C-alpha cells in the first residue's frame, strides 16, 4: 500500500554555523520550523526540494521531512525532527536557547 502523503518541509544545516535551517516561502532560510514553507502535494514537494537545493554554498544536506499543520503552522512529526527544532535534551543548548 502506498504511504499516505504527509505535508513536507525542506530542511538542512547551515554551512557556516552547522545549525538546523528550514526553507521559507520567500525562498530564504529560517531557524524556525514554524516559518517553513509547506508542500501539500507530491508535486509541490518535488518543486520545494528543487528550490531548496539551489543554495549549495549556504545550506548542506538538504532533505524533505514530514510535517503536520498545527494552527496553520508546520510542526515536526518524527521525533528526530522534533529534537532538531530544540537541541539536545541534556543541556539548554542549541535552538531551544537561541531561537
Amino acid at each position: 500500500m502506498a504511504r499516505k502523503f504527509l505535508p513536507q518541509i525542506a530542511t538542512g544545516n547551515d554551512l557556516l554555523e552547522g545549525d538546523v535551517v528550514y526553507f521559507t516561502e520567500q525562498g530564504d532560510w529560517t531557524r524556525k520550523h514554524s516559518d517553513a514553507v509547506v508542500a501539500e502535494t507530491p508535486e509541490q514537494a518535488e518543486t520545494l526540494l528543487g528550490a531548496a537545493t539551489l543554495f549549495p554554498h549556504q545550506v548542506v544536506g538538504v532533505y524533505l521531512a514530514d510535517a503536520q499543520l498545527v494552527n496553520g503552522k508546520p510542526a515536526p512529526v518524527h521525533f528526530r525532527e522534533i529534537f532538531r527544532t530544540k537541541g539536545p535534551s541534556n543541556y539548554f543548548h542549541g535552538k531551544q536557547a537561541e531561537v
Partner: protein
Amino acid sequence: MYSYSNFDAAFVRDRVKEFRGQVERRLDGSLTEDEFKPLRLMNGLYLQLHAYMLRVAIPYGTLNGAQMRQLAHIADKWDKGYGHLTTRQNIQFNWPKLKDVPDILDALADVSMHAIQTSGNCIRNVTADHFAGAAADEIEDPRPTAELIRQWSTDHPEFAYLPRKFKVAVTGAPNDRAVTKAHDIGLRMVRNKAGEPGYEVVIGGGLGRTPMIGKVVRDFLPRADLLAYLEAILQVYNLSGRRDNKYKARIKILVHETGLEELKARIEETFARNQTLLEPVDAGVVARINASFAPPEWDRRAVPDIPHLDAGFRSFLDTNIAAHKQSDYAIVTVSTKPIGGTPGDVTSEQMRVLADLAERYSHDELRISHEQNVILPHVHRADLAVIYGRLREAGLHTANIGLVSDIIACPGMDYCALATARSIPVAQKISEAFSDLQAQHDIGDLKIKISGCINACGHHHVGHIGILGLDRAGVENYQITLGGDGTETAAIGERTGPGFAYDEIVPAIERIVNAYLDIRESAEEAFLDTYRRVGAEPFKAVLYPESNKANAA
C-alpha cells in the same frame, strides 16, 4: 610521555595550514560540499544533528596537564565550555563553527595534538589499556607499541582508502581493560616459553550491526616482527575486504566469509614477503619511543595512616582506586558520571582541576578510558585525601567506578546524525533510579552500556546489560542484551526479546537488577557470574511477565 619530534610538529602544522586553505575554498564557493566533506572528515570534523562536531585524537588515551588545559581553553573560546570523552579515548567538541575550526586545530597543534584519522576509512586512533604503565597486573607498558603503531599508521599512503575504518587496541596486562577482542586487530603482550616478549594477535573482532569476538591469528609474534605482520594483515584486508557493501566491509566479515585458516595462510604469505622487502624498524626510533615511556621517578615518602575516614572518602577508596605496580602508589579513576549527569562530559573548569591534579600529584599524566572516565595513573597514596578533596569541590568525586551508574553512553540522538534514539537521557534516568550509592555498592560490579543506534559506539554488545536504542515506526524503542563482556573473557550479550518504550526502559532495567539481587548466591557473586550460572530465563521472566503467564496457561 611521547613528545613530538620536529618532523611530527611540522607535519601537524602543515596539515592545519592545508585544512585552513580547504575551509577558505569551501567558504568562497570554490569547493562543493561533496568535495569538501571527505577533506573535513580527514580532519575529524563531522556535521551532526545540531552543529559541527570536532573529534580530537588522544593517542592511546594519554595526555598531560598542559594538553588538558588547552582542551579547556578550546572549550571556552570556541565551544560551550565542555567536552565529551569517547569510547575511543578521544574527546569531542559539540558546537564548533566551521570558520573557527582551523584556529582550533592550530591551538591543538600548540600542545602536540590534532584531529587526524579520527574519521574515515583509515586506521583510527590506536587505543590501549588506560592503566598502562601503572597497573599492578601489567606484564609490560603497551604504549610504546601503541605509539609505534601510531607513527606507522599516520598518513600511511597504502592504507588511506581501506574498505572501511580500522581499529587497533593494545593491552600489556592479562586483565583486558582495552576490549581488544572487539577490535579489527587486538594485540595482547605476552612472553613465550623462552621468556621473549611478543604479541598474541587477534583479528576480526568488532561490534556494530554484526558483532563478533576476534579470533587468534598468531599465538606468538616476536616483537621485532610487529609492523611487518600488521602490514601483512592490512594488505590482505585492503585487497580482499569487501567494497561492494559498506555493512560487510569490516575485516570481521572477511574473516567470517573467508575462514580464519585460509586468511591466516594469506597473511603469513604476505608477511614472509614483507620480511624480505621491508627494512626493519629503525632501532633509534624504537629506543626513542621506549625512552619516552620510561617510568617516572617515584616519590618514596611514607604512606601515612588515615585514621578517620569520612564515609564519602571511604567509598571513593573502595571503588575508584586500583592497584599500582608501586605499592605506595595508587591509580585513581575519576568518574565523569555523577548521578543524573551526562556520561563522559567534562566542563572546562573540571578539565583545569584535572590538569592541575595531574601536574601536582600524578607525574603530569592523565588518561582517558574507553569507559569515558579520566585516570590519574600515578598517585602517591599520601596524596589521596587531598586529591579527593579537590575532586569533591569540582563535582568529580562520584564513587561509582564499575557500578551500575558508571554507564557508557554514546551521544545518541541528542547530538549524533546517525542515531536512531536517545542514549544520554536513558543513562541519566538509570543513574537517578540507582542514586543511592550505598545500594550501588551492594549491587556491585555491573556494566551497563547504551548505544543510540546499531553502530554500537556505546559498546552495548559487551555490556553486562546492553541497551540499544532504535526507531520502531517513528517511536524510540530500546532492546536489551544480557551477558556481554568486554574483557579477556569477552562475550556478546544475548537479546532478551522485544524492546521497551522510552518510558519503560528504566523500570525494565530496575527489574533486571532486582531479579539479580534475589537470585545471586551471595553478595560476592557479581551480576555477570549470576547470569552465567542461571542464564537469561529468570531475567526474561521479570522483563516479560505477560508472556510468561501466557506460556504457563
